[in-house]
């Protein structure tokens, strides 16, 4: 099978290069860059939607990107079961185009927040996380609209269906408001769709792949090896 990973980038994406570096380093393959106006995407492999400020985050983070032709293709592939990962702005785009539940709204502090956080992995049955040995990983966050919101009815559905993937936690995996950097419901940092082939997360694993920034991101990408 052809090994393939695709990164869809939009005007204003700015973590596309960082993601490509991480993929090259961890998965030893060169990702394919797809411009947002691509109206036919064939055999994408894993699709990544990178962080940044697509279309300047004007109107609302992620919303304008959902009008790009490439997103129609992402939705088509999602239905076919292709693995899709949206990080930060990518997560915002995936909720805006309804591939994922909930919404990402302004942080409780109303301020942009950039720091390293600990995340407890909530679900290891999923192919995105089953190869990660650690129970808690450390990735940076950098966002101002990262507060995950979902109503109680849908929250219950997420819980019942094991769709919650990452929660903000302490180093030892405690979950409380103290470790919630943005006010997310139940400290939720990342979820999957019902079919469990679409993952969205606010933290940046691609920013944790060397000894200076921490190496927990490596296991995230290495874990994807069997999907490609």
């Amino acid at each position, binding site marked *: 099978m052809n090994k393939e990973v695709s990164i869809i980038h939009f*005007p*204003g994406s*700015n*973590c596309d*290069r*960082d993601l490509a*570096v*991480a993929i090259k380093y961890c998965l030893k393959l060169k990702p394919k860059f797809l*411009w947002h106006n691509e109206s036919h995407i064939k055999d994408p492999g894993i699709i990544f939607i990178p962080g*940044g*400020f697509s*279309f*300047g*985050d*004007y109107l609302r983070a992620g919303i304008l990107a959902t009008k790009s032709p490439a997103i129609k293709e992402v939705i088509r592939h999602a239905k076919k079961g292709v693995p899709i990962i949206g990080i930060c702005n990518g997560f915002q785009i995936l909720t805006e185009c309804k591939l994922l539940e909930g919404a990402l709204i302004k942080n409780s502090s109303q*301020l*942009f*927040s*950039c*720091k390293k956080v600990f995340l407890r992995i909530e679900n290891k049955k999923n192919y995105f996380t089953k190869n990660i040995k650690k129970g808690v990983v450390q990735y*940076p966050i*950098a966002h*101002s609209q990262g507060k995950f919101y979902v109503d109680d009815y849908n929250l219950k559905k997420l819980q019942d269906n094991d769709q919650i993937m990452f929660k903000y936690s302490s180093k030892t995996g405690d979950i409380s408001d103290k470790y919630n950097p943005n006010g997310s419901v139940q400290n939720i940092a990342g979820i999957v769709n019902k079919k469990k082939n679409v993952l969205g997360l606010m933290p*940046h694993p*691609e*920013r944790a*792949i*060397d000894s*200076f*920034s921490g190496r927990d991101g490596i296991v995230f990408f290495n874990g994807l090896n069997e999907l490609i």
Partner: protein
Amino acid sequence: MNLENNLINAKTIIDHGISKSEYNRILKILKREPNLLELGIFSVMWSEHCSYKSTKKWLKTLPTNGEHVICGPGENAGIIDIGGNDAIVFKMESHNHPSFIEPYQGAATGVGGIMRDVFTMGARPIANLNSLRFGEPSNIKTKNLLQGVVKGIGDYGNCVGIPTVGGECSFHKSYNNNILVNAMCVGLVKKNKIFYSKAKGIGNPIIYVGSKTGRDGIHGATMASAEFDDTSIDQRPQVQVGDPFMEKLLLESCQELMKEDAIIAIQDMGAAGLTSSSFEMASKGNCGVKLFLNEVPCRESKMTPYEMMLSETQERMLMVIKPDKKKITFDIFKKWGLEAIEIGHLTDTGKMQMYFNNRLVGELPIKPLADSAPEYDRPRKKKAFKTIKVKKRNLQIENVFLEMISSPNHSSKEWLFRQYDNMVMCDTIFSSEESDAAIVRIHKTKKAVAITCDCNPIFCYTDPKLGAKLAVAESWRNLIASGAKPLAVTDNLNFGNPEKKDVMYQIKKAIEGIKVACTKLSFPVVSGNVSLYNETKGKSILPTPVIGGVGLIEDLKFVTGINMKMDDSIFIIGYTKGHLGLSVYNQICGYKYGKPPSIDFDNEIKNGNFVYNAIREVGISGCHDVSEGGIIMSLAELCIKNKLGIQISIPDEIKKENWLFGEDSSRYIIITNNEKKLLKYAKKMNVFVKNIGKVKGSSFKIINEFEISLKDLITYNKQWFKNYIDIEK
């Protein structure tokens, strides 16, 4: 010539900030009266901001050459060689006046402007820093200004995706009505892919790309060249509005176009917009220009040529391209959703000819206008200082220390830094909270650059020359402490009204100080910016010559942070005399007089070389310079950063206060477990080194003085910002 003749009169001339002698100079150049458009162009080109008329005479004396310098002052930014095919492009620029009037947009567009200066030269920006000065926290405006400026800087840099890796922020009442926002940008370029602004090739098209021109920022450069008064707030419409998304599109599209062999000259439309960009390109290439102003994309209807030429709408670029590359140029910009438009071409007339509705509406000779810009040798006089006898408050060491670490100027700036994305691009090794200088890796290599900006305005006020020397030395020392070899600086000179003798004295003396220090330290000035008229109602700011230093770390294994490990030994490098004049200690004790510490450059270089080599040969855990607040402040910062305790003994031969709080220059703290090797090496290099204690326990302990738990220390250090911001307005 049949020019449209908008009548001008004596009032128009005064309103444009043109003096009588300057007007006579205009008449001499034109051999006729200028029309309104032409007068407007003269006024911005000859404004202090664009022409450096009060400082040029002194700036020329600065050392600008060195073995690493590829491009010194005069271009959009300075360039230095960092080995291989890599070069670093950098510059610092102020956006003081706009930021005071509208803090969010003023600061944001300051960041945008300096990034364009850097990427115009072909570089990809890799780091932003900033140097901020606000008024007293208790001043009614300060909190709003602080919040607006920080958000403006963060939102702009974060959106474009360039990490904001550090800087400085302090408060002083002299900035109550005139804050300083100095933004620095550092970019990376391949040496064979540097772009300059020199236009050439008669007939070559001039291309405009970026935001549409609006009425914002008309006369911004002139505003930056006048004092503030009560009506300044009415100048809000002159503050430009930033669009970081447009900046990102311009950055990416220009980078893509730069790979093609299409661009001959490129310049961003910064201060004085279309006027200065077109004049500068043509003047450097000895060309003439024909501009067809009907082609200029306008945001508003019925804009006049005067408004188009003087608008400072942000995120616009002007370039001269090869005629056979027009198609690829337009195609690339189109891909990024930008419209590029040909608005004119180069001629051999040496004149700027502006057409509107098929009529010549302005015609100016380019070279004479640029070359005969006024240059003043303004009168100077030293201000007499009165020393009033005041009694120092007699305070316990512990109390002074706690007051210091919880004061606005010395408490943790985490609240600010959190709002900046300091990691995007994934090459930030240390931000400036983690090391004396921010350290950014050169992508895909083992090299890194260290970057810092520094100034102590209190020192500069009492002795501008010595103060400026100390600012340069501190920048140099910060680079050394981070493991770098200092290479070059950019300077941002913030002063009051140069038409006042005492201010002009400060300016000249500060430049002299920079000259001496940069010469002695082989630390050339490759770019810079001058911001004058930082006064409100006749009250000037403290003289603030901010120095932005850049250094090179040849291998990542030598990057050095403010780090320590349990059981390491703590050494002080450099002799401590215990100078308390103008120190933070004295300020807290209520004594504001005295002199700044002296500096001996031979000693500075000796100690610096020692530290530089110790990082490479001895093996150390961390290094931190000793500056504001003295040894005790540096030690506290080490403990807070590493969450480790220390035990320190004060030497017998010196008064405790002097040793702990003295601010003598040329000193560092080194943390290592290779005690013997360090001492042996110090002996060999004849450098003063003293073991002062150990990394131990979970408290900050000065033996025989006081002890405070780490937890309390951190709380003291972190509480000020949080309390200040959280209190309802």
